């Protein structure tokens, strides 16, 4: 019988399989950042262990780094950006210690690091594909739940906790239970003005935040095939918001075209050998999935979230729902809580919801194509005077490329702030936060209570909707301008 893409990758990585035990899976690429790694390195040190494969490991500083003051003073970039002294962008000594700890650990254990200020620095899920390290057929892990992003290139990629980070550092393997497979088939074509972000928000709204639990999702169908790599990355990124640890898209010409010539992509004879392997990966015609969900792309429109989990999303053209309309008592209670937290009244048109802050960035929508999409809406326009807008590129390479295209000038002319790379307001760990009661339209992936700062209220949107919202001061699509 045929196998799915996920099953083929899994089978190719089983080091050891025994009845009644999880499979021991080999890991091809391990990504590290400052927040979920320090305790793992401590564990290695305490046990007197080394990093087994530093050559399959790479680190970056992203979650906790400031996004101003790194090169905003007309100074040349220095790599790494100093942690101490007048050139240090750190205001918070605890954050600084965490970044310093990563630098020390990487030096001690021989792991390649892209520190702040380095041209290669950026959000971990942006730099993997950018470097060409993310490739079809690989197993990729990171102490971060959005590792599912890398599935866009046909890699089996999933987030892990710190104990597992330590396990991979020490052994380059992970004991894992074979997941079930779910096909998410999106037929037809996305209408004009509907982005990959709208698509994934619609998918999560349909299957629920727990719908993908225990599954690897494989996104299929004509609407997925038609997505450029940036959109595929956006879709796979949010698989975890549907409860799935991993999301996958079969590699095809879009994938190969994307990879060709990247720093770590194979070349010459190795490229041909890799290509043969990659072409063998897509799900066989006679393979079966444990579950399938079918979506008609033509029915979609721009989506925004109204609540406090990513499944609480609706078309922008609709209104805040009435909790009483939910049949399930759990959903009803969750909706009531969410509306209280979000300070929204049932029946209010989503287009009438005013925001204070607009955030464009994150591993969901911080790539060059996302910035282009936002800039094309802002070109020749000003953001509303009541709105603060932060544009935070996903990596320093994205930032450099955007500047080469003049996008930074479009953003600053419109009244937005142009920042250095990092997670920034996606998780409110660095100084970029919402104040209590502030409301944002954000291109990130989580609208949890307090995610962007304690008491902050988040509406998840696409880059296009974010930009239009910044102009009008309330939730809007470019077509509304």
């Amino acid at each position, binding site marked *: 019988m045929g196998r799915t893409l996920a099953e083929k990758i899994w089978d190719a990585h089983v*080091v*050891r399989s025994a009845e*009644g035990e*999880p499979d*021991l899976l*080999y890991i*091809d690429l391990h990504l590290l950042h400052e*927040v*979920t790694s*320090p*305790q793992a390195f*401590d564990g290695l040190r305490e*046990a007197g262990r080394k990093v087994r494969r*530093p*050559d399959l490991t790479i680190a970056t500083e992203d979650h*906790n780094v400031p996004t101003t003051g790194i090169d905003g003073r007309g100074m040349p970039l220095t790599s790494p950006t100093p942690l101490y002294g007048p050139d240090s962008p750190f205001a918070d000594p*605890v*954050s600084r*210690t*965490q970044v310093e700890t990563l630098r020390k650990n990487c030096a001690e254990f021989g792991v390649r690091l892209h520190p702040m200020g380095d041209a290669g620095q950026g959000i971990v899920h942006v730099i993997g594909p950018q470097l060409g*390290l993310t*490739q079809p057929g*690989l197993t990729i892990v990171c*102490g*971060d*739940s959005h590792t599912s992003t890398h599935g866009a290139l046909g890699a089996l990629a999933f*987030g*892990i*906790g710190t*104990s*597992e980070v330590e*396990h991979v550092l*020490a052994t380059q*393997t992970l*004991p894992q239970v074979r997941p079930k497979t779910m096909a998410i088939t999106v037929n037809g074509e996305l209408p004009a003005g509907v982005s990959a972000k709208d698509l994934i928000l619609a998918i999560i709204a349909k299957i629920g*935040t727990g719908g993908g*639990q*225990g599954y690897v999702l494989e996104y299929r169908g004509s609407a997925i095939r038609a997505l450029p790599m940036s959109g595929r990355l956006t879709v796979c990124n949010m698989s*975890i*918001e549907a*409860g799935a*640890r991993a999301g996958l898209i079969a590699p095809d010409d879009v994938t190969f075209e994307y990879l060709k010539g990247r720093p*770590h992509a*194979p070349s010459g004879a*190795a490229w041909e*050998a890799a290509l043969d392997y990659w072409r063998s990966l897509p799900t066989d015609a006679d393979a079966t999935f444990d579950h399938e969900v079918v979506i008609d792309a033509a029915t979609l429109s721009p989506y925004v979230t109204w609540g*406090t*989990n990513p499944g609480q999303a609706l078309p922008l053209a609709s209104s805040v729902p009435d909790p009483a309309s939910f049949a399930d008592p*759990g959903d009803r*209670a969750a909706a009531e809580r969410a509306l209280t937290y979000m300070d929204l009244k049932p029946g209010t048109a989503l287009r009438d919801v005013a925001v204070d802050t607009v955030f464009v960035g994150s591993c969901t929508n911080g790539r060059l194509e996302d910035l282009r999409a936002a800039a094309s809406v802002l070109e020749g326009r000003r953001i509303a005077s009541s709105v603060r807008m932060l544009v935070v590129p996903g990596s320093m390479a994205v930032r450099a490329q955007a500047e080469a295209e003049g996008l930074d000038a479009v953003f600053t002319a419109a009244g937005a702030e142009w920042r250095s790379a990092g997670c920034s307001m996606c*998780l*409110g*760990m660095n100084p970029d936060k919402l104040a209590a009661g502030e409301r944002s339209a954000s291109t990130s992936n*989580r609208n*949890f*209570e*307090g*995610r962007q700062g*304690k*008491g902050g209220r988040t509406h998840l949107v696409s880059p296009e909707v974010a930009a239009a919202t910044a102009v009008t001061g309330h939730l809007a699509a470019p077509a509304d301008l």
Partner: protein
Amino acid sequence: MEPFVTHAGRAVPLRRSNVDTDQIIPAEYLKQVSRTGFGKGLFAAWREDPSFVLNQPQYDGATILVAGMDFGTGSSREHAVWALTDYGFRAVIAPRFGDIFRGNSTKAGLLPVILPEATVAALQDAIEADPATEVVVDLDNRVVRAEAAGIKAPFEIDNYTRWRLMEGLDDIGLTLRHADEIAAFERSRPSFLPVTA
């Protein structure tokens, strides 16, 4: 890791669904580089509300959390588990868990117990009616008992995870027993695979 065989204690009902790990411990508490001291960040935002369950004196000293559907979704932060154990919890009972959180729990000695929604609700009712209700989480026999409330609910957990938890075994040590197989696998990897070096 501290072994887990059977734990008896008082429980606290958390009647909320979709409690994500950002709620269990907000990002601002993740800056520490140690593994301890995260208890003070546990449910930090909610604990500011005096009526929040963990602030109610009748639940002081509870060691079992009885939560709603989809507990521990979202971020992979193991700090969420460390916050719960640092605060004193040994087990969490819920109808369904976020996958990464559940995995992290079993690595850090916190037992995640899946029970049907109706059983969880019955447990919550019983605890609210009498906060002194003793709840026994018996991993050895895979059963949760609250005898005073007439509750005896079997739960499923795979043999391997159960054995590891009961022995308090460190995964890395177990895997390193297979170092030869790992080395053999490494020799078979194709040469076109990427390296970071």
